[in-house]
């Protein structure tokens, strides 16, 4: 009996691989190499470099804010960013909406066998950049590899920990009659950028995702307006309409929006016309809705406009005591309609 020499070949390739192999999730040498060559150089910091079973960090104050989010997006790269930007911004922004200063981040990766390393590198690079911009460090992480077809390229989970300021606690129950409804920037860019990339729609003016870190904006609001900032929300999935409905329900107030004041960029409006969608329900990843006491409106707008991602901050409506729980939009014609929560995903219309 003879054995073909190929049958004896080690399944771990001897040379440099250019993509993720199942072996990278084995816990063996390939896993160590993945960590050493790709993650540590970009995320490296004193806490992470210890490589213990758990990160040990100094306790920040009496109370902390904790938030977790998982990121699945197709395509992984899109105009304006990639899944790595989203994975940091999404969690950091959730902390910021509670008024917390983001400090630490954990990162869990589920990688699909065959994922090209250059794509993985771009994602890690994006996370590294976004993290340092947000002032957070990645203190612990995990990597798993699943067989081809069992994940859409890669999934990322991040958990963030932030320091709370006991004197600054914006919350969804705190909106009051007469408060102003502000947004920090143009509506609908992230969702349209993703849809355009997914459907391979080519518009004359490309729409870029707005993915951005909102922590500096919130810090500016805290410094200038303090408790006059009643409530902050980042209108991601479900868009501005869903975020405002949640606030209206939690605070037991009505919200009136002015259609003419909504900052919807022309290309977003055009794409939504074409796709039969409503920009108010389209996802955003770099703007926030702020409910602000009436006497702090100008100061809040000015504070937001000092930052790039807040330079077109504007007022879009008012909190009212009438019709608690309802969000109403006054149309350009002076009539009103209800802006409700969606029953599920927004579905494009036939005609």
């Amino acid at each position: 009996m003879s054995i073909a020499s190929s049958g004896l070949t080690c399944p771990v390739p001897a040379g440099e691989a250019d993509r993720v192999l199942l072996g990278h999730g084995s816990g063996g040498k390939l896993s160590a190499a993945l960590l050493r060559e790709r993650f540590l150089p970009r995320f490296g910091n004193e806490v992470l470099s210890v490589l213990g079973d758990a990160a040990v960090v100094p306790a920040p104050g009496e109370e902390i804010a904790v938030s977790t989010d998982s990121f699945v997006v197709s395509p992984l790269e899109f105009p304006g960013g990639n899944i790595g930007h989203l994975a940091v911004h999404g969690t950091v922004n959730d902390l910021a909406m509670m008024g917390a200063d983001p400090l630490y981040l954990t990162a869990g990766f589920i990688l699909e066998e065959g994922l090209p390393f250059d794509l993985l590198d771009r994602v890690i690079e994006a996370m590294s950049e976004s993290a340092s911009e947000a002032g957070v460090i990645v203190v612990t992480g995990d990597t798993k590899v699943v067989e081809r077809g069992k994940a859409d390229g890669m999934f990322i989970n991040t958990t963030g920990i932030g320091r709370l300021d006991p004197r600054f606690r914006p919350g969804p129950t705190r909106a009051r009659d007469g408060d102003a409804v502000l947004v920090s920037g143009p509506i609908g860019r992230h969702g349209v950028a993703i849809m355009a990339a997914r459907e391979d729609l080519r518009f004359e003016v490309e729409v870029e995702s707005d993915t951005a870190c909102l922590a500096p904006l919130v810090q500016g609001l805290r410094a200038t307006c303090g408790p006059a900032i009643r409530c902050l929300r980042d209108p991601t999935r479900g868009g501005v309409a869903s975020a405002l409905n949640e606030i209206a329900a939690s605070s037991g107030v009505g919200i009136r929006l002015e259609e003419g004041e909504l900052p919807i960029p022309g290309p977003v409006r055009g794409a939504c016309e074409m796709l039969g969608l409503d920009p108010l329900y389209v996802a955003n990843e770099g703007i926030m809705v702020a409910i602000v006491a009436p006497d702090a409106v100008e100061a809040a707008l000015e504070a937001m406009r000092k930052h790039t991602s807040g330079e077109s901050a504007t007022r879009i409506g008012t909190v009212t005591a009438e019709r608690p729980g309802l969000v109403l939009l006054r149309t350009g014609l002076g009539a009103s309609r209800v802006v409700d929560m969606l029953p599920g995903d927004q579905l494009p219309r036939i005609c």
Partner: protein
Amino acid sequence: MKYLSEYRDPVLARSLVDRILATATRPRVLMEVCGGQTHTIVRQGLQELLKDAVDMIHGPGCPVCVTPLEQIDRALFLASRPDVIFTSFGDMLRVPGSDSDLLQIRARGGEVRVVYSPLDALEIARANPDHEVVFFAVGFETTAPANAMSVWQARELGVTNFSVLVSHVTVPPAIRAILDAPDNRVEAFLAAGHVCTVMGWEEYEPLAAEYGVPIVVTGFEPVDILEGIHMAVRQLEEGRAEVENQYARSVRRSGNEPAQALVSKVFELVDRAWRGIGEIPSSGLGLREEFADFDAERKFDLGSIRTSEPAECMAGDVLRGRIKPLQCPAFGEACTPEKPLGAPMVSSEGACAAYYNYARFQTETTGEPT
């Protein structure tokens, strides 16, 4: 957007509202046929602005709403087959069949994909030769040319794994059915601008003459719709009953003749059941015999799918304009957009879903349903 913003101009719209209010000597009952117009009317709150002059009844022009339950069940059956990639316009996905919908079929492993054009479905068929690709060809005359083109191209390209589940309907027979109903209240119609872009308006002239009813071909933006309403009200006040064209920037009297030619090469007139209304003779389009190979109903053994509508659903009366959605006992209680009993509660173009938003607001401001 150029060529669009002027049709949303609030000042122009307000002046049209004032002209309609000044023209109507008594409240007039108008029906907009098309779901796209219903959508604008509700989104912009036009009913609220016009409530003293015009009662708008939302007609059966929502393709999602009038596709019969049997056909939805056939779609669900096909989408469940492991060898089928089922393709559809987005808003068909949540329409309830007898015990499921396409979203649930997808969650259970059925391959259901949203497309924006039937030609995309044909591309999917070419890219997946080991699957049968079925496109759910629903809609009025507006979507018929592209659907016809997909079948035509499939034959030209020799694509044998592509077929269409057809549920096409046409507008004029529906208008006739509404006018023939003994309890009809509709005094004038806004005809659907997109349908007439394809078909022209010649076929509406006999209807206007025979029934003495004004018909105005109307666009979809607020200013279009208000202008269409104004033209219809003016005809009623002047005792005229003609076909007029508000949507002149898109519609010619003879329509789009090459599109019509393609439609009649691929489709022929057939009797068609309308959900909630029942069968209307010669009111639908079916594939001609020579395209039978592309007809999903002949290609697959669909068995005998029999259905019955939920007894408490009054969609038929709503679609015929006999009752307003608020008058249905199930409205907002047993039937909501999250858990619809009938199709008009599903699509944003559906009258019940439209009222679900609008009427809740009305009820809370005036204390009584209108």
